[in-house]
């Protein structure tokens, strides 16, 4: 195994569902993340995909300790983040940052670009006020914004430029790990391309480890080295991006890939579609056995409905999926 940079050890994040006004009783548990183990190498880009409600955002937030995990550990460079005290965690946060989906909501409308970025820089480092404008300008140049915008407010920028400011803010503390939660979903196609290029470039230049959360498979495939597919709080398939896309192992990944519309009428017409029936079940009632069995076209009861599948590879040990029938359906 290559040296691990970030390790998730059986991470679970559960939320209680309570009822009652005065006497609150727990009536159910939302198992948003339900046992995720994953090892990331330094400098790689891992794409996290899945339908809404599959727990991909919660996993991202759990890694950053914005939501403490219910069980399991998040280990960054040998240090267990879940065991840190509040102060220690605050210091450790210089190493990992987050970029959010909506660049309109994440920037303070009353702060200029300078204020926003200077605050981020000074929160983890002492910089003299004479030096600060240089730092901020350098940061803006890095994300492709002209430093002459330094005194402008967020509303004076377009969506793409705002997302650049948000990226600059994340880079301000020189992090080693960035989690980008749907960073391009709110942007138009032509702007999307700019942000994807920028993130790819930054990750290469700064040796950043990037977790790229998105529901858009074609974007994830383009930018990621590896892809992790989530379903109902678990990773069901993990492997090199191109392989997961071209020869998915798990039936769910197959359905996901075949559901992505291809902007090419010729290929689109030739393609065989596998359309899933129904919606994903509620994370309060995760089906027993393989969680995908109620929607799976390859389901083979009683095996699939009783045995919880573990990761298994077909030929390439790098690509693994949690499906009992992996060898039979390929």
């Amino acid at each position, binding site marked *: 195994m290559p040296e691990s940079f970030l390790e998730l050890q059986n991470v679970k994040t559960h939320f209680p569902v309570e009822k009652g006004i005065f006497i609150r009783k727990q009536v159910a548990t939302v198992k948003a993340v339900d046992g995720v183990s994953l090892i990331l190498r330094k400098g790689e880009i891992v794409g996290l995909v899945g339908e809404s409600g599959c727990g991909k955002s919660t996993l991202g937030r759990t890694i950053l300790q914005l939501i403490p995990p219910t069980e399991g550990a998040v280990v960054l460079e040998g240090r267990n983040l879940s065991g840190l005290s509040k102060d220690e965690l605050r210091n450790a946060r210089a190493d990992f940052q987050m970029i959010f989906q909506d660049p309109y909501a994440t920037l303070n409308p009353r702060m200029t670009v300078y204020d926003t970025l200077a605050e981020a820089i000074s929160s983890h480092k002492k910089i003299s006020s004479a030096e600060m404008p240089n730092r901020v300008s350098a940061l803006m140049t890095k994300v492709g914004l002209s430093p002459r915008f330094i005194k402008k407010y967020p509303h004076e920028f377009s969506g793409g430029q705002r997302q650049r400011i948000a990226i600059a803010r994340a880079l301000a503390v020189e992090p080693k790990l960035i989690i980008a939660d749907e960073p391009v979903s709110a942007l138009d196609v032509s702007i999307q391309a700019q942000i994807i290029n920028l993130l790819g470039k930054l990750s290469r230049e700064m040796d950043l480890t990037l977790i790229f959360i998105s529901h858009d498979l074609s974007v994830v495939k383009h930018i990621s080295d590896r892809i992790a597919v989530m379903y109902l709080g678990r990773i069901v398939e993990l492997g090199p991006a191109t392989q997961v896309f071209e020869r998915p192992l798990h039936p769910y990944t197959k359905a996901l890939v075949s559901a992505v519309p291809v*902007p*090419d*009428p*010729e290929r689109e017409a030739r393609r065989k579609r596998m359309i899933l029936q129904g*919606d994903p079940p509620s994370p309060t009632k995760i089906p027993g056995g393989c969680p995908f069995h109620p929607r799976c076209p390859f389901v083979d009861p009683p095996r699939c409905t009783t045995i919880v599948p573990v990761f298994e590879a077909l030929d390439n040990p790098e690509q693994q999926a949690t499906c009992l029938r992996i060898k039979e359906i390929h």
Partner: protein
Amino acid sequence: MEYWNAPYFITPSLHHSVPDPMPPLLQVENLHTSFHTRHGIVRAVHDVSFSLEKGETLGIVGESGSGKSVTCYSLLRLIPEPPGRIEKGKALFDGVDLLSCSKNQLRSIRGKRVSMIFQDPMTSLNPFLKIEDQLIEPLLIHENLSRDEAVKRGVKALQDVGVPGAEERIKAYPHEFSGGMRQRVMIAMALITKPDLLIADEPTTALDVTVQAQILELIKKMQKEIGMAVILISHDLGVVSGFCDRVNVMYAGRVVESANIADLFARTQHPYTRALQKSIPALQPKGAELYTIPGMPPDVSKPIRGCPFVPRCEFAQPKCENPVELLEVEPNHGSACLRVQQKELDLTSEDLR
């Protein structure tokens, strides 16, 4: 009431000296829609013309603010007036001009012969009313059915769109449905009067890919059953390419390219369409630098004289500042690029791809 000169009194054959074998179902001519705001006149739709045959599927693609939704809202006069104003244009639907006909006549068409589904199924259903009441409303208004009969049709409609347990579910409230199921309810509601034209405004944008595939498949199936025409508004070239016969690409309130879906991709005739294709990750080799369109879409509240794409176009020349309209550059393929029209620029040649 001015029923004596109402358009339905004039049969199409009287209208044309040479009888047209198949008049199009919808013909939009020179539509201009603008919004008169405090910050000036926003020309959201500028000189848009297109036609749609019976049973045809037309896609309208463009980025946000390109006027694709306003075009369709204008057709049904759903633009809030003021500040919106349909400045000029015609939209002949089966011989009736939707833009100038009386309110009563419009009401008899809207929701009966032309239906619409919207992007967000959460906000387009009334949370206070049971699905039943909302679903059968078009039948009570347009078909004078009794409530019992209408409910029967409603249950059937829900079954058709694949809502399991329709008989009980019809009594439920919108919040008891998932996003995909709500969009199915919206579709059932739009199709319950068997319209001739369905306008779908980003019907799957709020949904997951797996559910998106289900919904698109459903619209296609219903289209085959009813034989209706569909206008699909989308920002996603992928969705459009699997679904539509023809596509209009819109930019800054104008149609810049109009073609059959295969030609749009294989024989692109406008620099904007080409730039869009080059910036989509799905069409590019993995990890390659994506093409980015420099600059930003123009501010349509300022008058645009020539081609609106000039400031961002890599092929622009000084003459591109002159007014340009959508002209046929190949059979059935329109482009609003002056240089393509004058055969100076061949975007289909290999060295440009």
